[in-house]
């Protein structure tokens, strides 16, 4: 069972990390925000799985903290998106 949890955690991390390719690729900041959000959710899932497998105590509170912080960062970034016009990278680097 422990091995299954660890394998599942590894797969989830690998999956959501693949989504991180969007941070570099874009094309716009909206995609970057989305890939961060899926990493946040996957990170919580992986954290819980690892904690249950390796018996680290008190990780449920860490996961609670992460669940609170994911929208915290998202609000800040979404705020940033409304503050300035959504620029695609091309305009940004051309300037």
């Amino acid at each position: 069972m422990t091995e299954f949890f660890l394998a599942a955690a590894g797969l989830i991390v690998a999956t959501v990390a693949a989504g991180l390719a969007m941070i570099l690729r874009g094309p716009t900041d909206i995609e970057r925000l989305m890939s961060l959000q899926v990493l946040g959710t996957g990170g919580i899932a992986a954290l819980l799985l690892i904690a249950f497998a390796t018996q680290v105590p008190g990780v449920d509170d860490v996961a609670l903290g992460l669940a609170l912080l994911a929208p915290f960062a998202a609000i800040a970034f979404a705020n940033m998106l409304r503050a300035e016009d959504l620029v695609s990278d091309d305009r940004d680097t051309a300037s």
Partner: protein
Amino acid sequence: MTTLANIVCIACISGGLFFFLAGTAGLLRFPDALSRLHALAKADNLGLGLVAIGLMFRANTLLVAMKLILIWLLVLVSGSLTAQLIAARVRRVRK
């Protein structure tokens, strides 16, 4: 009884894994921002939810089980509302 619980646990976590995979694949492959948002919601809601339900079978105390549910609810609420924020932003850009 424990074997049954184990089987349900493994089934739930595998299901969660599937939704993380599907969500990230959609995020990377779907053509426009709103469809990507739709894919992202699958990973947020079902992926983490199934993992949390699966882990509840292994929770030692009721408190830990309640925290797992709370984590899921937090991600559910914040995920849907940040999706709303992002979608509103996407619509504005399109106009």
